[in-house]
């Protein structure tokens, strides 16, 4: 070993340092920022705009911003320090005053630890589901238990927690409930519809599934939500009138089901035909073949696009604003309408955008990571 390295060391030529013009930050900048006169022009123009804009934003959001306001005797005068800098500086005091309302809506103030805990449970549930170590049957039980605990926390009525009616819920928990319960119910529906659409033996079922998917994908979510809010009560027998949130939830499940079904169908189609034939050759029944051979492979392939579709639904839940359900965006809009704080909607919109962005960006990073891992396994 030692002699080998010695021999190698002796035979290796002395490495020359590359010329100074090819390494270091200057060379990097010459290559990547000023590669040609065209590139230099773009760099200078963009750099100028970026510096100007970033400085303007910094001076608005930090330098001249009002972070808190003293309590005024007349509540309508609370915002006066903010009004003095309006247009020059941001008023973050509105967030300080309203953040509990934006996050939890009109949930009773002293019990807001319950929706807060529910939000943490949701985030924990996502984190556990994202971990590949937990991708097994037990995950299903974890989901059922967690969702039940969340429902218990929100409603209360037992274990010394006061009952809180559903029309008092609001804010971030509603957004998470619509998205998560939507996915939890839409996913099994989507798998069944995708299988139905692929079936060759049952033409009637296939026609039904194709009709459902194409109809839902052809119309905007708004029209389904309108349907849920004005048409659904007509469908129900007299006296039975499910509340607004449940109706919107059903609309979102039906909507999500159609889109997820197409994603799942993509996975089913990408499996080689040999897998189906091999399962048939083993004499497995349809359900054995589907549950033990086809779905485990097909669903694994479509996890990254499923996460991307889920990001879409998470954003689309904000549409319930239009039928007056109190989700995060609606809570923000109501907070803006407070006469004390009129005119500071930009700040609230920025905070709302940051919350949505945080959730969606985390999911999209995760989905890209998975894609890379799967790609690595495939291209071995």
């Amino acid at each position: 070993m030692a002699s080998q390295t010695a021999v190698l060391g002796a035979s290796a030529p002395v490495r020359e340092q590359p010329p100074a013009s090819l390494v270091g930050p200057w060379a990097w900048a010459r290559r990547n920022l000023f590669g040609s006169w065209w590139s230099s022009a773009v760099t200078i123009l963009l750099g100028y705009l970026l510096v100007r804009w970033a400085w303007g934003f910094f001076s608005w959001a930090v330098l001249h911003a009002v972070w808190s306001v003293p309590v005024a005797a007349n509540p309508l005068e609370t915002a006066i320090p903010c009004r003095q800098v309006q247009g020059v500086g941001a008023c973050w005091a509105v967030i300080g005053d309203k953040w509990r309302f934006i996050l939890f809506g009109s949930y009773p103030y002293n019990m807001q630890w319950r929706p807060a805990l529910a939000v943490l449970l949701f985030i924990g549930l996502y984190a556990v589901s994202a971990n590949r170590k937990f991708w097994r049957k037990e995950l299903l039980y974890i989901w059922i238990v967690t969702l039940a605990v969340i429902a218990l926390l929100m409603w209360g009525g037992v274990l010394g927690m006061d009952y809180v009616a559903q029309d008092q819920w609001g804010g971030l928990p509603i957004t998470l409930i619509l998205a998560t319960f939507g996915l939890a119910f839409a996913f099994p529906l989507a798998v069944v519809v995708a299988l139905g659409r692929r079936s060759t033996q049952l033409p009637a079922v296939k026609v039904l599934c194709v009709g459902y998917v194409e109809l839902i994908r052809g119309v905007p979510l708004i029209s389904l939500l309108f349907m849920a809010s004005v048409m659904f009560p007509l469908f129900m027998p007299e006296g039975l009138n499910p509340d607004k949130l449940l109706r919107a939830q059903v609309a979102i499940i039906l909507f999500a089901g159609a889109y997820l079904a197409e994603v799942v169908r993509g996975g089913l189609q990408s499996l080689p035909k040999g897998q189906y034939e091999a399962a048939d050759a083993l004499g497995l029944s349809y359900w054995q073949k589907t549950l033990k051979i086809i779905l485990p492979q097909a669903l694994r392939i479509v996890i990254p696009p499923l996460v991307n579709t889920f990001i879409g639904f998470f954003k689309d839940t904000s549409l319930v604003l239009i039928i007056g359900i109190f989700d995060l965006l609606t809570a923000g809009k109501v907070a803006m309408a407070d006469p004390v704080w009129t005119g500071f909607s930009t700040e609230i919109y920025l905070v709302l955008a940051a919350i949505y962005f945080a959730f969606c960006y985390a999911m999209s990073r995760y989905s890209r990571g998975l894609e890379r891992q799967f790609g690595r396994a495939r291209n071995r």
Partner: protein
Amino acid sequence: MSASATDPRLAPTRQAPRRKLQLSWSDPRFRNIVWQAIVLAVIAAILWYLVGNTRRNLELRHIATGFGFLESSSGIPIGETVVPYTPGSSTYLRALIEGVLNTLKVAVVGVVLATVLGTIIGVGRLSPNWLLARLTAIYVEVLRDIPVLLQLLFWYVLLQGLPAPRQSIRIGDAVFLSNRGIKIPLLVWEPAHTWALLGFVVAIVLTVLWARRAKRLQDLTGQKPLVWPVALGLLIGLPVLVWAVLGAPFTLDLPALKGFNFQGGGTITPEYGALLTGLVIYTSSYIAEIVRSGIQAVAQGQWEAAQALGLHRGRTLRLVVLPQALRVIIPPMTSQYLNLTKNSSLAVAIGYQDIVSIASTILNQTGQAIEGIAIIMAVYLTISLSISVFMNWYNARIALVGR
């Protein structure tokens, strides 16, 4: 002939003997029929139940069904009209047509602008310039992860927050930005312009014919006559010539501040402006990703082979890379166009009167919930179907011709 008859691969595949359908659970065909019958029966029962409930509920509320209400006159005021409409005397049907036209106005302009902006951003992400690549990447990442409704509301607040007409921001003396919208100069339309437009259409036809002839000559002789000077001359020269012959009328209708508001000129209302800006910016971030991945999907060897043939960068892109990239780009692009059209229904949140907004107003005025929603769905299904038929046709045209 005889060889092929003995070749077992070419012999017709042996069909399994066709058995008669047996009325027994062990016959899979019988099982399938039973299962389908059960599924259909369950769905029919659910539908029957829902229809029954609906009819009872409608009777209880004294709502007449049917589309007769479309003929009665509507009192809905509509801010932006494409065809003449007067609230009070025009019918509900006219109001709905107005809504459809407003939806199309946003969708068509939005699709064009989003494609242009998205392509620029997507190509920018592949730029060797580090700053440009990073900034466009941030643009895509941030805008894709914020709900489009939030973006629309934000742009609407921004446009409404512009100063009043008297303190409006002016660009030159022609464009005014105020909280009443964006005022732009309009050309006073005269017959000469119509003729010039007609000349332009004729020029397009002539250019296409010339291009075809050039292609034929190239096939015959290998020499290709230049196309672009002829095209340029025709497309610009002919309309200008027609316009000049007819006296070259050119008057601009400039907006001017009179009292508290503007007179003259064209208006982009804050609602339309916010909706268009929001949809274009949101969709362009998706289109940018599609364009980027489409260009990246073309193998590096294609660039190198084109270079080896002596094509320079522009021709490589146009003749080698883009035709292949388009095949990857078209299908996801279609679904983005559909998404933009469907997202235009969010207009109802900022008060732009598209089909959803007008239909829901009608629905509230008349109580015709089922008909109103059926109309909304029918309109969107028609638009979606038309876009996908067109894009499928285009996709088939550029698809790789298989062996």
